[in-house]
């Protein structure tokens, strides 16, 4: 099975956000970067499908700066066979620009499956997978939490409000992975050593400016001091009112 997995290098989920000097981006000093957690599910799924099929290849593709090679090596250490870095200093804010570059790289690949994480934890954009699928003219299912494949037919389950959507699709296809699809493996010691020797191609690319332009990156308003709403069951009505009107969570 020929499987491509598109991954992204993102700031670690524990990152403490500091605004950079330009007021538009993250201050990267001291920030630890990692493989996007949702992409881990995608890499793991790719490896399992290849192992199940008995033969094939899992290639990992990443759009990112030079440092993203380390991210690709993480996927190689898990077991992917080769990696491609589409090198660009800045990952565009406009997902469509990213999608165009990835689609161009994937176009001639004759892939059985192209996997993505459903979203990146830095921008929560949730779109590059389906954008790429459209550009390649391939069927696509997003946010897959459970997957069965039988030959060239697949059944995916995805969470929707109030239930689970069961979706049928043909291969080849683009799928985006959600939490629960699998438990990603820990890279083994031997895998970490082997990763250093696996092929990693670096191709410089020029993303277009895109149609979404960042104006300002700012910290959210300070969390206000909490307040005791009242005592006993009598305070409940006021609590609910505040949750509805002030906090807007109901």
């Amino acid at each position, binding site marked *: 099975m020929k499987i491509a997995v598109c991954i992204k290098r993102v700031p670690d989920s*524990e990152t*403490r956000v500091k605004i950079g000097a330009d007021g538009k981006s993250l201050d990267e000093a*001291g920030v*630890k970067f990692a493989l996007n957690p949702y992409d881990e599910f995608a890499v793991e799924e790719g490896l399992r499908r290849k192992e199940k099929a008995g033969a094939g290849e899992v290639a990992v593709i990443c759009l990112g700066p030079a440092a993203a090679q380390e991210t690709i090596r993480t996927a190689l250490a898990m077991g992917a066979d080769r990696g491609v870095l589409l090198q660009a200093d800045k990952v565009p804010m406009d997902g469509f620009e990213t999608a165009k570059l990835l689609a161009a790289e994937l176009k001639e690949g004759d892939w059985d499956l192209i996997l993505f994480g459903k979203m990146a934890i830095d921008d929560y954009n949730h779109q590059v997978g389906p954008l790429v699928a459209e550009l390649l003219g391939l069927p696509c299912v997003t946010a897959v939490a459970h997957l069965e494949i039988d030959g060239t037919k697949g059944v995916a389950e995805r969470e929707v409000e109030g239930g689970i959507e069961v979706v049928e699709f043909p291969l080849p296809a683009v799928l985006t992975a959600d939490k629960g699809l699998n*438990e*990603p*493996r*820990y890279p*083994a*010691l*031997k895998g*970490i*050593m082997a990763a250093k020797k696996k092929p990693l191609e670096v191709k410089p690319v020029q993303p277009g400016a895109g149609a979404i332009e960042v104006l300002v990156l700012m910290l959210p308003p300070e969390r206000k001091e909490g307040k005791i709403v009242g005592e006993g069951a009598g305070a409940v009505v006021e609590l609910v009112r505040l949750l509805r009107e002030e906090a807007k969570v109901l």
Partner: protein
Amino acid sequence: MAERFVPARYQPPLPLEKLILQDGSEGAGDRMELDVLIVGAGPAGLACAIELAKLAKVGGTELNIGVLEKAEALGEHSLSGAVVNPRAFRELFPELKDADFPFRAPVAREAVYLLTAGGRWRLPTPPTMHNKGCYVASLCEIVRWLGAKAEEAGVNVFTGFPAAQLLVRGQAVAGVRTAAAGLDRDGGRTASSMVPNDLVAKVTALAEGTRGLLAQAWCQWQGVSSNNPQLFALGVKELWETKQPLDRVIHTMGWPLPSDAFGGSFVYPLDPHLIALGLVVGLDYKDAGLDVHVLLQRLKQHPLLRPLLAGGEMIEWGAKTIPEGGFYSLPQRRAGDGVVLLGDAAGFVDVPSLKGIHYAMQSGMFAARVIFRTLKGAVGAELMEYDGMVNTSYIAKDLYRTRNMRLAFRDGFYLGGLQAALMTLTGGRFPNEPYRMPADAEVARRSGEPPDGKLTFSKVDAVFKSGNATRDTIPSHLIVGRDVPAEVARFYAHMCPAGVYEVAADGLRVNAPNCVDCKATDVLGPRWTPREGGSGPKYKRM
């Protein structure tokens, strides 16, 4: 008279049978063979690896060098003040200049204060603490920098792999077995769990840092003793972004420590608005209620510090023990069949000058040279030469000069201070005999405003700032003694800076995931064992 108890009575012994394993025992997944295995990617381990790689390159040989690190990424378990003596860096990288090293700023000005509850006395800087020529640095940044150099030199650095057991063949050390990962709370395997791996090598360098588990195990197994048991201090440290600038390195003594506890604080500017500050207290303190974290919170309210921190933000918190015993606590030998002990794991720390990083690196470099000679099969070369190199170097010389200084404080601050002053004045000739010390856990013990979340913080908030995100379902890695009475449970609760121990209605509660691997528990209470790689704190610039 107040009740007393001795913590050692409630402390389980070192689980030696679990720590020493015959090579070839089943239970491991992968088996990897290396030329040299280094346990711990701190300054000692990385300096050793870099020096070895250099020697191999110059000698035209290829050495397969592996470094195991329990943290998920380099530096995440590294914590120190720190003010660094650059000499080891200069020797390891003769082609580089000081400006190339991962230091923040040279120490320009310093001040030492004796604090009282509301005031301070400026003291002349003790000769042992002069830091001219030294640099303020973050150990995390040093480790990441050294790690990059090591990888460039072809060293394999494996992060996320704690060494849990020593593999032995007869009386020789053959390597280590790593900890399992992904186990559930009861120790059972889960879908994604990882079995332990065996790494075997011709020489294993134990550079596990303070209270290294396998170093302890090896010494006990081989009957390697020392004049005094190793002593430890607990340091709790915070990193602050401040509105007010700081232009000098500060050390304090006195308040808020009780007079029968040894220790002091440090305040170091990594840059004028990025301050590292911490409180270090010897673990032989007598008051069972002493809580280093709480004392640090109190310290910050002193007029010397409060204005400095006003309007600032605490961005990181952490804790770590420091081996304090000095010269007389060094193991009689630090090399054996197939093994060497480096850095803090061997006790190479000079407390009066608060230095350990350059000793750690130097010990790693000495070990590398000896290891290289033995691997090459040079006639007569043996690992024991490493002891000789250390003993004739400035490491031993410096530690010998201050050999009794910390120990004098066994008798309390004032008496100790007097004795320490005498030692300084006589250049180490007073006293002539070593002070005899009991192990911290053998010292009998006697049986505070809520934090405001801006200047002072609870342990819960503090652990959050250490970056600790250990999964809650991890099996507990701490070995607790049976029948821990309430007063001892309370003592544990105060001792642990991370809030691992709590006194509940039904006895001692252990919140193991909170643990930041400072090792205070291993010194005074429940034994520490490694847990799955990546657990514990994630220090960034500590």
